[in-house]
C-alpha cells in the first residue's frame, strides 16, 4: 500500500467511523458502505495567537519576545517532512486609526524576533531566525506533520505620541514546493 493510499485508507476509516456512528444511532444493524478515494491532502495555516502588545506607555519601548505568551503564533499542517519557505512582510510603522493622518508609531523586528519548530508546539525550543530574511522550515514526520512559527517585536511610542489605536499588518507567507 503506497503512502498516498495509506492516507486515503485512514481517512476513509475516519469518515466511515463517524458515519457509522450516526447510522448506528438510528438503525443498529445498518451498515455504511463507503467508497472513497482521497485525491490529495491539504495544507492549513492556522493562527493560534495574535501578536499583542496591548496598552503601551508613551516614551517607553515595549518588546514582545517570540517566546512570550503574547507573541504571534501559527501552526502549519501539511505533508510530512515537506519543506516550506517561511517569509514575513513586516510593517515599519503602525498608524493611529483614531487620530489625524500622519500619526504613527515605529515597530521593529530584530534578527531573532521569529522562531520556528518542527512537529512540536514549543517556542522555547524553536530555532530563532530573522523575520525580515525568512528561513526554510520543514514539517514534522508522521504522525505530527506540523510546523510552528512565532513572532515578537518592539513598538516604540514617542513621548508625544497621540493616544488611540495603532494598527499595522503582519503577513506570513509559506511557499510549498
Amino acid at each position: 500500500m503506497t503512502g498516498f493510499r495509506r492516507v486515503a485508507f485512514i481517512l476513509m476509516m475516519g469518515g466511515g467511523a463517524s458515519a457509522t456512528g450516526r447510522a448506528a444511532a438510528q438503525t443498529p444493524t445498518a451498515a455504511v458502505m463507503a467508497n472513497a478515494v482521497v485525491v490529495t491532502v491539504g495544507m492549513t495555516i492556522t493562527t493560534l495567537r495574535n501578536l499583542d502588545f496591548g496598552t503601551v506607555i508613551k516614551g517607553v519601548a515595549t518588546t514582545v519576545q517570540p517566546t512570550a505568551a503574547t507573541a504571534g503564533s501559527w501552526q502549519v499542517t501539511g505533508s510530512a517532512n515537506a519543506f516550506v519557505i517561511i517569509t514575513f512582510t513586516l510593517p515599519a510603522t503602525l498608524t493611529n486609526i483614531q487620530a489625524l493622518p500622519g500619526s504613527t508609531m515605529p515597530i521593529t523586528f530584530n534578527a531573532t524576533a521569529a522562531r520556528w519548530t518542527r512537529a512540536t508546539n514549543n517556542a522555547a525550543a524553536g530555532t530563532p531566525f530573522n523575520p525580515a530574511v525568512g528561513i526554510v522550515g520543514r514539517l514534522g514526520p508522521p504522525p505530527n506533520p506540523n510546523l510552528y512559527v512565532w513572532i515578537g517585536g518592539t513598538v516604540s511610542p514617542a513621548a508625544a505620541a497621540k493616544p488611540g489605536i495603532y494598527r499595522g499588518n503582519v503577513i506570513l507567507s509559506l511557499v510549498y514546493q
Partner: protein
Amino acid sequence: MRRVFAVAAILTLSGAALDAQGVMVAPHAVFIDHRLRGGSVLLYNPGTEPVEVTISTIFGYPVTDSTGAITLRTVDAPDSTLPSSLAWIQAFPRRLTVGPRERQTVRLLGRPPVGLADGEYWLRMVIAAQAGRVPISGVADTTAIQVGLTLEVRTIIGVNYRKGPVTTGLALSQLRAQIVGDSLITRARLERRGNAAFIGTIRQTLMDSAGRVLDSYQSPIGVYITMEPRLVNLISPSRLGRGRYWLRYEVVTEREDLDPTVVLKAPAVRDSVQVVVP
C-alpha cells in the same frame, strides 16, 4: 466524484482542528492538462469565524542559494524564455469569504496562446487569508495607546500546466555528507532534465560499515531548475561512534502527498558517499 471524496477527507481531517483561525488549501499543488485547461483548489474554513480570502498569481520557482537553502525566485514580468503561464491562467473568484465550516472552490482557467509549444508552464497561486486581528475593546482611557496588528497568512502553491508530451528526469552529482553533532548534513547537485519539473522525494539511508541500516530520511522535493539543496536530519541514535559510515542518496519520482497520476515518472537516480566520524 473525486471532489466529493476530497471534501470528505478535508472534513475528516479538520475534525481535530484547533479553535483558531485559518483556512485549509487543497491540493497544495495543481496540475492542469492542456486538454481540460482548467483546475480547481478547495478552501475550507475549519474555524468559527469567517475568513476573507484573496487570490492572486505570481511567477516563481524554487532555487537554492549558496548555502543550499531553498528560496522562491520570483519574476515580476517573465519573458518568453521562461516557462510561465502567468499571462494566460486566471483564477476565479479573486476575492471571497469562506464562512465557518464552509468550503469554497477557486477555479483556474487556462487560455494559452495559439501555437503554444509542448511542455510544462508554471505559476504560483497565492491564497491570502485574513487570519485574525487583535481585538480592541474600546479605549476607555482616552489617553491610552493601544496596538493592534492585523495578521494575514499567504499560502503559495505551485500550478503546473502541461501541454503535449512532457518528460522529466534528474542528473545527480557532487554528493557530499558530513555528521555534525547529532545531525547528518548532505548536499548534492540536482540537475533537471526534460521539459517539466521533477516532483519527487529524496530518500537517504545511513548505514554502518557492515551495511546495517542505522536511519533513513525522506524529503519531498521539487526540482524546477538545477539546485543543490542542503538537507539536515537528526540522527537516531543521536550520537554515532567513531568510524566509517555510508550514506545512500536516492531521488525518486514518488510523492506520498500527491495523486500518483499527476506525478511524472522518471528513472530514479542514486549515489553513495562515505561519512567518517573522527
